[in-house]
């Protein structure tokens, strides 16, 4: 079934979050206007990549992918918009990620423990298993949700 973007967006915004809600205008502002915000908090994020385990510090107003990049950890990404699922990770144990900046993120994604690191902000200390694109695509297929780059994948 075709879903309208507003529905997707609505779903995304409707999901539980720990950080302040960002309006669409605020999202555009974040993309286009250099704004001064004092990050109030930093979190410790442990990244479990296929090659190594790395710990990084991420500000509460920073995307996890960007912080990893700045601290020398290169993670997969393609759209950088929270759509394509290339940057998907899975949260291990407790922890919260704010996905309000993602173009599409569903309650089922959160329930299954997935996160989109390109547009995800930490709300707590986290441990994230990276390189979960294929798994997240299969999960989306299983739930009948849009799954970019999934041709030929079985749920």
């Amino acid at each position, binding site marked *: *079934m*075709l879903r*309208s*973007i*507003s529905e997707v967006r609505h779903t995304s915004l409707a999901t539980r979050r720990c950080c302040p809600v960002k309006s*669409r205008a605020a999202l*555009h502002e974040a*993309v*286009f206007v250099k704004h001064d915000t004092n990050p109030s908090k930093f979190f410790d994020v442990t990244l479990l990549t296929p090659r190594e385990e790395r710990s990084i510090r991420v500000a509460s107003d920073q995307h996890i992918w960007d912080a990893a990049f700045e601290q020398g950890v290169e993670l997969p990404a*393609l*759209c*950088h*918009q929270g*759509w*394509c699922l290339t940057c998907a990770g899975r949260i291990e144990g407790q922890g919260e990620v704010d996905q309000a900046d993602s*173009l*599409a993120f569903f309650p089922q994604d959160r329930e299954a423990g997935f996160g989109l690191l390109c547009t995800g902000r930490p709300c707590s200390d986290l441990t994230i298993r990276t390189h979960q694109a294929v798994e997240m695509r299969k999960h989306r297929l299983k739930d009948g*949700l*849009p*799954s*970019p*780059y*999934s*041709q*030929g*994948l079985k749920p």
Partner: protein
Amino acid sequence: MPKERVVKPGDVTQRVGVEVIRARGVDVEKLIRMLIANAAAEFASTYYYYTILRMHLAGHEDYKEICEDARLEDRAHFELIVPRIYELGGDLPNDLPAFHDQAGCRAAKLPDPPTAVNILILLLESERCAIRSWIAICDMTFGKDPRTYDMAARILNEEIEHEAWFIELLAFERDGKSVPSGHFRRGEPGHAPYSKNASFYIGS
């Protein structure tokens, strides 16, 4: 010399054109998946350009002209990709919603409210996603699959131009600034100087 599986004479179940690139290290199944995602994004973007351009940029005739070029070029991109998908042994999903849901970039649906600034932001981000998607195909095929690489590079050329156009228009419309794109007028609507093979088009 890379070793490829030998295709038996008369065998129509395998393709030398595929085996030679597989032997050079291309993950053909992944490439097909990426081409289908890009084809879906081009298809959807062509469709949404109709709604955005035709219905909601009244009074911005210059923007309409630029959008028209971008729309026709996205259509040319779609038509350039499809044959390559089939040559590689893939095919398009028979189900249009299934195709739509695989797109690598968000559909450029009309923003709310549909102001020129909001439309230009949407189109700019859509072109940026296209650039990232096509350079990923270039990276994957460089030095291994010259045919797909050539196609992706030609599309990428136009996506980079599209981004520059929308930066110029948005900077002017929203910020009152001049950020030139270096744009020259296309030969005619739908010219697509990189992604159309002009000799294939009678009269063009």
